[in-house]
């Protein structure tokens, strides 16, 4: 009997490495799967020698057919049913970041590669602080310089954000490797569907300011192919552009492709039941997204996985 299979999202807390989260989920699932009641052991008929009842025989052994459980099915002989689970991780988060972290179990790991090839955007909430510059662009690093920031206004920040968005939009069109002279390129550009479907440098598709209260500010960033350290570098560069300096205090992923904060399971819900419910809830969304983006390529693997994940989730 296979364990659960499919894709689900957990909420990774800050200060913990992503592999620890994956191992914690694996340990918890193993514990619950092994604690479930096992199948009753097989019974067999063995002819066991038993002393014959008196008075006839008197001491001679007699073979009596008895039903005994097969020793090979004893729990102490077999050991735990599940020793390891194949849990794969989606787009990783570094130690200081937190947020939606997609994991796949069993056959769902194949869907992880498909989701990676869809190149969907991720949404982050990035918090920043003006006035300081550190060596690793976050507020826990070694201080390099302190600057004044009282000249910064929300309009100046939004102007900088508009130009960041503009240059990144241009990069989006350039790295998508489409010939700009074709009618097809024009139509995709009108719909806004052009994006790089191969490796590319980090690209920010949208950025806006959510909160601004000197010295703190908060941005919402939609990006592709990024790392969290790149987002911290962006905050640092915004500080430089405004003739001051800035450090990043918080990086929180609020959306990873189709998985949002509502789908992410907090630590109290990392158990078998909630994970199976989460897999079932997200299955449809994931399939429609993969179908839409990669559907025009080979169809059969997606359908095969569909059947297998259906069986895995229901058991």
């Amino acid at each position, binding site marked *: 009997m296979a364990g659960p299979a499919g894709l689900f999202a957990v909420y990774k807390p800050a200060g913990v490495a992503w592999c620890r989260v994956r191992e914690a989920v694996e340990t918890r699932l193993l514990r619950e799967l092994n604690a479930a009641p096992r199948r009753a052991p097989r019974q067999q008929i063995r002819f066991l020698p038993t002393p014959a009842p008196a008075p006839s025989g008197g001491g001679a052994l007699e073979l009596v057919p008895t039903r005994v459980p097969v020793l090979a099915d004893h729990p102490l002989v077999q050991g735990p049913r599940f020793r390891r689970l194949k849990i794969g991780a989606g787009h990783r988060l570094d130690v200081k970041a937190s947020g939606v972290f997609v994991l796949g179990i069993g056959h769902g790991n194949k869907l992880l590669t498909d989701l990676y090839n869809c190149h969907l955007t991720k949404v982050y909430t990035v918090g920043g602080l003006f*006035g300081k510059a550190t060596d690793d662009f976050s507020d826990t690093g070694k*201080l390099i*310089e*302190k*600057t*004044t920031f*009282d*000249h910064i206004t929300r309009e*100046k920040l939004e*102007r*900088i954000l*508009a*130009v960041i*968005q*503009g*240059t990144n*939009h*241009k990069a989006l069109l350039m790295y998508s490797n489409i010939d*700009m*002279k*074709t*009618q097809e*390129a*024009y*139509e995709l*550009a*009108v*719909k*806004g569907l052009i994006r790089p479907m191969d490796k590319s440098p980090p690209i920010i598709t*949208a950025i*806006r300011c959510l909160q601004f209260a000197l010295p703190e500010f908060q941005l919402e960033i*939609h990006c592709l192919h990024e790392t969290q350290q790149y987002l911290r570098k962006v905050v640092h560069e915004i500080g430089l*552009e*405004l*003739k*001051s300096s800035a450090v990043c205090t918080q990086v929180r992923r609020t959306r990873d492709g189709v998985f949002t904060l509502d789908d992410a399971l907090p630590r109290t819900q990392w158990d078998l039941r909630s994970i199976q419910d989460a897999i079932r809830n997200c299955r449809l969304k994931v399939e429609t997204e993969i179908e839409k983006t990669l559907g025009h390529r080979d169809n059969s693997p997606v359908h095969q996985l569909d059947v297998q994940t259906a069986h895995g989730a229901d058991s």
Partner: protein
Amino acid sequence: MAGALRAIRTAGPARPFHCRGLGGAAGPPSTRQLREAEEAAPVFQYTGKAARRKDRVFVWGFSYSGALGVPSFVKPDAGWKKPRRIQPTPYRLETEEKISSAACGYGFTLLASNTTDITKVWGTGLNKDSQLGFQRSRRDQTKGYEYVLEPSPIPLPLEKPQQTRVLQVSCGRAHSLILTDSEGVFTMGNNSYGQCGRKVIEDEIYSESYLIHQLKEFDSRVVQVACGQDHSLFRTKKGSVYACGWGADGQTGLGHYNITSVPTKLRGDIAGVNIIQVSSYGDCCLAVSDEGDVFGWGNSEYLQLASVTETTQVNVPRHLPFKIGKIKEAACGGTGNAVLTEEGNIFVWGYGILGKGPNLIETAVPEMIPPSLFGWSDFNSDICVAHIRCGLGQFAALTNRGELFVWGKNLRGCLGTGRMEDQYFPWRVTVPGEVVDVACGVDHMVSLVKSFT
């Protein structure tokens, strides 16, 4: 009982953790030491609250005519450097004064500032017809320069040079117009078709000429000037339009196909209409009224006016009945036209690369360019186009966020995208600042930009 007096060691000033001396304990700095080191660090100030945004000029395109105003592109300052024929991306032009108006002609550029100093207008580029006035050569004091490689002052014969301000400049193929606030319009350059507003003199030699003509006879103060290829348009405060120059395509709109050498008022469909903007760059002209209607006259070989007439030349202004909403601004190029509506949408028609992909080559009826190409999306739904400008074969649009989008024929790198290929849909030009105005020429462009902070 008070025992022996003990020396109480006072805590010294907080020293950074790496200067512990021999008395302190070893180990990584504690949180308190880190916090104290941070508070003791000096604060640098790079700019104050009263810092103003700086005004800059960026140029790009073909440089050998001198139109970009950077002499080192044409004559490099070191022997091993190569001359730069085309500047494919925006290049900053250092100017002494804040430039408030710029215009690109066919191979030359005029920059004007609305200051009250003596020098108000600078010109650079081609000067074979004295379209930049007389530029005395330094090698031979009797001759003038044919090509001006650097923005050089143009002396104007003003009556009150320290009070008059230059409002706008405009350039055509070989002539220029300078609009002042109280002394009318100054014209210079080629006058073989009367485009400078003075009588055509046979066999006149236009190069190295000192003549700058002044035009004052209009029904009210002139508020806008526009140059076509070989004709000039003047718009007055009362809303009437005057024209002079070549008329073989009907671009003077005076009802005939002859040359006009005196600015004459236009009639036709714009008689009595309050016109708020005129535009022309080739042989076709467009005018916008205060009620949002657009009128056109001139060349119609490229279907520019085909919505009202089948003839290829229209010599009287005709109303173009387009049902696209109230029109705010119009821009007329060589073969294609564009208008900007109140909602911030651009409509294009005519012939050439119109901006809707390689399949749309010509249309007589205006077609809208989808706003998503200018950055509009559900995420940014308040982006709209604020201004539209035309060169001979290209278009430029400015959004309300200060971004510049260009499309059209990329003649000698005039689009500024960094590539040499034509651009079939609006493409962002990366300019380090907020673009306030842009002027398009045949093979170069000039933009007026405000820095970010």
